[in-house]
Each structure stands twice: as structure tokens, then as C-alpha cells.
């Protein structure tokens, strides 16, 4: 604090602290806290209360009828008192009906249905598979950009990698949708070759297979895997490779013993980003499957919020996803020995 005021003066220092505090509180921590809080309570369903209220009003109507037919003033007063009492009860219940009391607990997490839990686990496994596939696919490319090509070619390759990313994520998914759709490019070519019969719906349902989502997802998040690796590989002294070759090491051994160990922090960061993005991706599965293939967890979260309108349950699902991603990040950081500072690209 004191060092800040010394560096920027009182006025400016206070302004900077105020802005940063606002950012942390209003955009990061308190919203996160609000979501966690939301996931920890629920309100009892209204059905029961509504029934009770209906019953009370029925009773009151009967009493009213009895009261109007009664000539004895004392008895009539008794009925009136009963009606008043029931009315009070009904009012109290009505208040509860419009604003039922909150109950805190972990039920939103434990009440997750078997199917939803299965989807949750499957999403994690799928995301791990996407991450592993992306790593394998991207490593040669990162190697080529960072080490194997001249500076001019490296610029061209870098731009080639970035260009698809300046185009909307959604449009990138859309392009794959077009290719893999029932009447898409591949089925079109197959039909043209006479291998499938499009007119009688004899197409191959690529979109119903999870690999379609994989394909589009790797396509969508490839940059987040390639660039961290390129960044670390670029710092590798090429002489090390030459020295290893000079000592008679094979290409495979050089990659295994020299290049990959050097790229470790980049690999860790790439995996963290890719896993986080794919596990939490709503766009790719939502668009690629269009309800035809299996759901991803993010789609369940969306439905809890905007179809079931159960924000508490939806928050619990979101918190579960966040916990998994955080755990993955911590495990990767521990396994690869990288710090948070390495994640700055």
C-alpha cells in the first residue's frame, strides 16, 4: 500500500486501488459468492401450500353458507370467528406461497439425478479426451512454428493460426455444422459418389456421434493449445537440439528428452486452457448436436436456468463444473511444476 502511494502519489494511488477493488468485488468475487450462495439454498415446492389454501377457502365458503342460514346471533358470531381464523391462516399461507422460506443445505448438489450425474462425468471424460487429442494434434504444429521453420515462414504460420480465431467462434462451429450435417458437404459428396441415398434419408448421421463435437471443439480451441507451446518452445536454444543430434540421439529421443521437457510449462498451460474451455463450452455441443446427440453438462446448466427456471439447481451445477475445472488446474500446476504467473501468455 505504502509502496503504491510512493509510486503513484496519494490521489492517483487511491484511484487505482478504487478501480481495482471495484473490479474484484463487483465483477469477480461477489458475483462468484452470489452464485455459490444461490447453489446452497432452495424453496419448498408450492404445490402443498396451494392445496392447503384451497382447502381453507372451501371451509370458509361452507362456514359462510352455514352462517348465512343461521338465525341465532351467538352461533352466527361463532361461525364468523371461525371464518376470521381460517382467513388469517390462509393469509399467512398465501404469504408463504408467494415467498416460501429459504432452506440452506447441500441438497441441490446431492439431488442431482443419476442421468445428470452420468452426463457430468461423461462431460469431464470428453473434455479430457478433447484436451489429449488437441495436445497430440497441436504439438507438431507448435514445433514447426517455433523451431522447424525460418522466421518468415513462422510469421505466415502464426497468422494462419490466428486468422480463424479472428472469426467468430460460433461461425467456426457453424462451418463444421455445414460440413457434417445430414445434407452437409460430406454426405453431399458421398451421395454424389452414390454411396449414400440422400433422398431417402440414407445419410450418415455424423452429428449424432460425439466425435463430431470433438472435431469442432478441437477446431475451435486449437489456438489455446498451440500458442502456449509455441511461446515456450521459442525460448529453446536450437543449439541444444543440434548438440543432442551431434551426440547421436534420434529425432524421437530428441523430442522426448530435450524438446518436450522444455515445452512443459506451455503444455501445462495449453492443457489447462483447452480443458477449461471444452468442459465449459456451451456453444459447440449446443450447436453441433442440436439435441440429436448426447448432452454436455453445460447444456443441462442452461436448461436449469432458462427452461426449468431453477436457478438454485443451475447454480449448483455451475459450482460443480467450477470445482472440477479448478481441481484440474491445480493438478496440472502441481504435475508440471508451473505457477500462475506462467499462465500469462
Amino acid at each position, binding site marked *: 500500500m505504502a509502496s*503504491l502511494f510512493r*509510486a*503513484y502519489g*496519494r*490521489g*492517483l494511488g487511491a484511484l*487505482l486501488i478504487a*478501480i481495482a477493488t471495484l*473490479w*474484484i468485488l*463487483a*465483477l*469477480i468475487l*461477489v*458475483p*462468484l459468492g*452470489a452464485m455459490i450462495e444461490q447453489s446452497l439454498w432452495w424453496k419448498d415446492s408450492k404445490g402443498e401450500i396451494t392445496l392447503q389454501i384451497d382447502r381453507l377457502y372451501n371451509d370458509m365458503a361452507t362456514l359462510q353458507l352455514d352462517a348465512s342460514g343461521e338465525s341465532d346471533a351467538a352461533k352466527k358470531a361463532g361461525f364468523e370467528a371461525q371464518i376470521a381464523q381460517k382467513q388469517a391462516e390462509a393469509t399467512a399461507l398465501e404469504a408463504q406461497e408467494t415467498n416460501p422460506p429459504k432452506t440452506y443445505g447441500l441438497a441441490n448438489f446431492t439431488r442431482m439425478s443419476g442421468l445428470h450425474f452420468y452426463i457430468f462425468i461423461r462431460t469431464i471424460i470428453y473434455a479430457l479426451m478433447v484436451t489429449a487429442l488437441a495436445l497430440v*494434434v497441436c504439438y*507438431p*504444429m507448435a514445433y514447426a512454428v517455433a523451431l*522447424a521453420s*525460418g522466421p518468415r515462414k513462422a510469421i505466415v*504460420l502464426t*497468422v*494462419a*493460426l490466428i*486468422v*480463424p480465431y*479472428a472469426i*467468430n*467462434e*460460433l*461461425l*467456426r462451429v*457453424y*462451418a463444421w455444422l*455445414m*460440413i457434417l*450435417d445430414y445434407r452437409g*458437404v460430406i454426405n*453431399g*459428396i458421398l451421395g454424389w459418389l452414390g454411396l449414400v441415398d440422400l433422398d431417402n434419408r440414407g445419410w450418415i448421421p455424423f452429428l449424432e456421434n460425439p466425435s463430431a463435437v470433438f472435431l469442432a471443439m478441437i*477446431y475451435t480451441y486449437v489456438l489455446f493449445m498451440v500458442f502456449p507451446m509455441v511461446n515456450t518452445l521459442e525460448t529453446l536454444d536450437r543449439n541444444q537440439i*543440434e548438440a543432442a543430434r551431434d551426440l547421436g540421439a534420434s*529425432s524421437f529421443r530428441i523430442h522426448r528428452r530435450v524438446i518436450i521437457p522444455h515445452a512443459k510449462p506451455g503444455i501445462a498451460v495449453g492443457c489447462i486452457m483447452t480443458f*477449461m*474451455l471444452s468442459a*465449459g*463450452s*456451451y*456453444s459447440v455441443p449446443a450447436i453441433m448436436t*442440436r439435441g440429436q446427440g448426447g448432452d454436455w453438462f453445460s447444456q443441462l*446448466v*442452461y436448461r436449469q*436456468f432458462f427452461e426449468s427456471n431453477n436457478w438454485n439447481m443451475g*447454480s449448483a451445477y455451475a459450482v460443480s463444473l467450477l470445482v472440477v475445472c479448478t481441481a484440474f488446474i491445480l493438478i496440472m500446476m502441481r504435475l508440471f511444476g508451473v505457477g*500462475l504467473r506462467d*499462465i*500469462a*501468455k
Partner: protein
Amino acid sequence: MSTANDSAGARLILNIYIGLFCLYLFLPLAVMSAAAFNSYDYPSVTQWRGFTLQWFVALAHDGRLIQGLINSVAVALGVIAVSIPAGLAGALILTRLGQRSGTVLYSVLVSPVLTPGIILGISSLIFWREFGVPGGLFVAVMAQSSFIASYAMLLFLARLQRQDRTLEEAALDLGASHMLVFRRITLPFLAPTAFTAAVVAFLQSFENYNTTVFAIGGEWTLVTEIASRLRFGLSPVINVVGVIFVALTLVAATTYVLLSSRKKAR
């Protein structure tokens, strides 16, 4: 200049791989672009019904997409207005903090980058509802800014690492107030980065879907509008949007390559 690291065979395989990879990157975009000119109302390149510009005309008359575009720009500008000052403040503070307190603050400030986008959208939605603000463009701005500000901060931090701190000291020593030092020394030094950060923020905001779809409520941006249409089927009008993006990006990328190779040549 090619290094002698790999044998000719290995280099050939690598080059084929690079070729396939680029094909993987660009073929879908080419297919998407081509279909925009096909006069067939299902976007396709295999069933070619003749060249047409009719889908461009259709886009020009598509009120919701145009409004979505306007909304997207508005949100992106809002995100710039929030995330550049926030990222700048965070970076300026972090460069002057000690190792220990710095690491904690750093972790908090980069955490949004590592948080799935849908969670940022959800938490913003819940937070702002507490203040009676329903999902909409404002909440979208806030939700997106939470992580785009982190990106801006990382850019500013990288720049500040290359800062010659004696310049600020020299200015102070010459009697300048902290404000004057900031205005005349620090800000001009950071100006190019602020521009880059604004461009990055704009692009990130513009293309964002995962966060926005939760925060946008009854409003829509270009991207959420496209997504909701895809539920009902594909339309060449969306390909036209794609073509426009591809064209703009290619122009920008080509300019960049030309500029950077000219800079190299000098």
C-alpha cells in the same frame, strides 16, 4: 532458412502435416464462404444452383441481425470502457507490489481467464439480479468485462515489465506531480498497449457466446441471434455473415504480414 535439425524425410512428413493442419483450419471457412454465393436456400457447396448475391440482400434486410450487430458493437464498446481502466489499474498496482501480496492479488485478477465462460455469465446474472437488474446488454458488458479486463491486465503487465522505471523517477525528481508523471510519462508509454488491448477486448467481446448467452436475457447480440437461429436450421444468410468476417480478417492479416515483413526488411 531451414534448420538442419531434421532429416529430409522427417521434414517432408512435417511439411505434409503442416499442410493438412492448414487445410483443417481453412477448408471449413472456405466451404462456409462459398455456400454464401449459392442460390440454394440450404447452405451447400455440393448442390450448386448458381451464383447469387441474394443472401447479401437478405442480410441487409434482416432487422434482427442488424440490431444484433448494433448491440454487439455497443456491448464491445462498453467492455472496452470497463476493462481497459480496470486492467490498467490492476497492472499498475501489481508492478509495484511485493512478491507475496502481489501473488495473491495476481491470482484473483487472472482467475476469470481460467474460469469457464458460462460460469462468469451465470454469476453476473445472479449478482445483478440482486440489484434488480435483469439479464440484458448491461449484464453482458459486466460479465464479459470480468475476464476481458484480465486479458487487458496481462497485456499491460507485459508492457510494464519493459518499462524503464528511472524515467518516472527522473520526472518526479524534476518536480513533476504524480499526476503529471502519469500523464506525460506512464500513459504515453502505455498508449500503444492500450490500443492493442482495446482491439483485443473488442474482438473478444464481439465473438463471445458462452458468457453472453447466460447474461443477455431478452436482448440479443449478433452471435446469440445466430446461435438461436441455428436451432431451427441452417440459412445462407449466416454464411454471408461468415464471409464478411472472413474477408475483414484476411484484409487485416494481410496488412499485418506486409507491415511486419517490411519492418523486418528495414
